[in-house]
């Protein structure tokens, strides 16, 4: 799956997306932490199909996944 990265997290990763295979958002968090230096120290949310998910949710592979640092609109 193609994981979209934004703001500070895109900067840390040096990319605006990453191809990853995860079966759940919890697994995705572990994989992201191993791929992006310093991510464990950052606050971020995961959006599945453009909705922020708080709990661990299963991923089928066709969803639109995004990793979102804190919002700064306004």
């Amino acid at each position: 799956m193609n994981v979209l990265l934004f703001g500070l997290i895109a900067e840390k990763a040096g990319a605006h997306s990453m191809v990853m295979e995860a079966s759940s958002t919890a697994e995705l968090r572990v994989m992201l932490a191993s791929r992006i230096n310093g991510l464990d120290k950052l606050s971020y949310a995961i959006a599945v199909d453009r909705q922020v998910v708080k709990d661990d949710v299963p991923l089928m592979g066709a969803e639109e996944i995004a990793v979102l640092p804190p919002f700064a609109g306004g």
Partner: protein
Amino acid sequence: METRTPKQRDIFVEGAIDPSFLAESIAKHATRTDIGAHEIFLGQVRADLQPSTVIPADHPGQRAGGEDNAQPSAVQAIEYTAYRDMALEQMTVIREEAFSRWPSMTCLHVHHSLGVVAAGQLCFMVFASAPHRRAAREAVAYVVDRIKADLPIFGKEILADSSHVWKVNRSVDTVGRHTDR
């Protein structure tokens, strides 16, 4: 029963919001004589002092942004980016909620900058009109807060010394929205 799909509107504009755009926007409402009140919120980029993240040339191994070398530097501009598809979907939901909470509201216009906006320039505009002031006032306050909390918009504050820090909406309660605060 007829089902209505809310229309998605693009709120994003490239660069700063020109004050003349606001003036034109107000003028367009002159034909709507059922309106008795306009309420407008404008967000402007503030030249906050932020700790610099420049790594001193004589200490290349030193971690940027460390407590000991954090000289304050003023914000020159904010470069905004957004997760556009999600932001516009969320905005459609917020908009529908605002119209259901304040059904007398005549219209609601929202604009937010993307790209670089210099300190002192406008980056955000929420403009509600209604027959009477209360609905317009309450709707604008609600919509501004919801946008700050729920729209995936990111701001890179570019400092006078060319380093940058990432803006965080600290006034927004992010408990439950983000993992650890």
